């Protein structure tokens, strides 16, 4: 992580962070569902200075065929950072980091999707980071689960995600770029609010056990707030049409 520049004060005398937040305060989060016309489901997330788009296609026929699972659907996530998403141009194309993030997000989502309903298929999730400012995997996962629900994929719950970390020996939630670069630790968490399961957990940097537990607790609390916004985004998409609705007698029986 490199050494902290001595003149950079990540936490000031009043306990405020570099962007004026309190340790347990999240950056402003905005979620919108159904933003892309050609995808089966989509979502756009603005989380502080992060801008992330997620698109879902499927369930659809799985290619290449040898990846097909005869019993369940495959959730395949593709995380990508736009070349203009960071200060120095990011060399386009898959790299070690994006492979890793794609893998962990796929695994987190597989835990909530009813994959057994769609044997032999693949559910493709594309996450595009348009602007990055630390915490893009959390923003990506948050957007991806909204996009999945928007595509009508049956799921047990939406996955909410947020990070916690340690900055200037203080445990804080939702690190921004400076805190991530010059702080001591970062713990992204993916959380299923209904059951309390944790479907994504990583740690970069070092923490004592007490600090870790405190951070995890704070991240979980933040995830609960994220979850409220995710649900709101999906409901808002149909709210204009909501008061009326489909006629129940038309449901196909035995479907």
């Amino acid at each position, binding site marked *: 992580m490199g050494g902290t520049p001595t003149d950079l004060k990540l936490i000031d005398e009043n306990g405020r962070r570099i962007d004026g937040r309190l340790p347990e305060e999240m950056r402003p989060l905005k979620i919108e569902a159904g933003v892309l016309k050609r995808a089966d489901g989509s979502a756009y997330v603005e989380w502080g200075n992060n801008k992330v788009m997620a698109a879902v296609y*499927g369930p659809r*026929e799985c290619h290449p065929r040898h990846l097909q699972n005869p019993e369940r659907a495959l959730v395949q996530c593709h995380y990508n950072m736009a070349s203009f998403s960071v200060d120095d141009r990011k060399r386009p194309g898959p790299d070690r980091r994006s492979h890793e993030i794609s893998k962990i997000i796929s695994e987190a989502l597989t835990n909530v999707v009813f994959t057994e309903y769609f044997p*032999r298929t693949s559910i493709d999730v594309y996450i595009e980071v348009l602007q990055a400012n630390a915490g893009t995997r959390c923003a990506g996962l948050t957007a991806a689960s909204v996009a999945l629900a928007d*595509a009508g994929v049956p799921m047990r719950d*939406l996955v909410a995600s947020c990070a916690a970390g340690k900055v200037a020996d203080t445990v804080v939630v939702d690190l921004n770029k400076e805190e991530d670069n010059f702080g001591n630790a970062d713990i992204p968490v993916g959380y299923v609010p209904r059951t309390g399961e944790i479907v994504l957990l990583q740690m970069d940097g070092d923490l004592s056990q007490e600090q870790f537990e405190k951070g995890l607790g704070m991240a979980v609390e933040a995830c609960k707030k994220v979850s409220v916004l995710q649900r709101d985004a999906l409901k808002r998409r149909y709210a204009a049409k909501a008061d009326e609705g*489909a*006629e129940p007698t038309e*449901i196909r029986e*035995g479907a």
Partner: protein
Amino acid sequence: MQTSDSKESPREIVVPGDLLAISSKNAGPGTYSEGGKIFASQLGIKHVRPDSISVVPLAGQYIPYRGDLVVGKIVDIGASNWLVDINSPYPAPLHVNEVPWRVEFGETGRFMSIGDIVLIKVVGVDERKRIQVSMQEHGLRKLSGGMVIEVSPSKVPRVIGKNGSMIQMLKNETGCRIYVGQNGRIWVDGELDNIVLAVKAIRMIEDEAHSLGLTEKVKQFLEQNSRRGA
């Protein structure tokens, strides 16, 4: 679109993971139960019936069920079968034994070729979602002429309407021949102007799938426009 406050309660939008009920009712489509509680598994509209709770989905892919009438497109030809795209994640092979003609081995291409549109029925789906389709029932055939449009499969029930009221009205008002497949494909044939009108009406149904009194609205639309055309 009218928005009346008085009837907001019965049309509740639910999101995956929302608690629908704590009861012994049956968990219908779009829901799942865990520990005696029923939760939504899909984004949709909550629908409570006396003995079960279900969610009418707002989006989703077409998943074939036995007995579904679908509009398919031939995408490949084998020696003894045609491969039909039925707008679902699963390909549907149509075997020569399932068509109304006697087809010699290797002669499949002489009966139907790639790009042809067919009206077929799903006669079998196994647990691995292998599909069997047939063209041997009355009314099932190759569809020539006309055009095919696609709507979201979750909106097919709205295009058909209660006991077929919507589709019957569409056929009467436009004079078109229309087949609605459960897979969201709709085949329309008739006079060009009438086709255009029917397609517009179907797009209108798709856009306003959730409004009440939709059949009346579409009827009005059709009457106004066909009069202008005459």
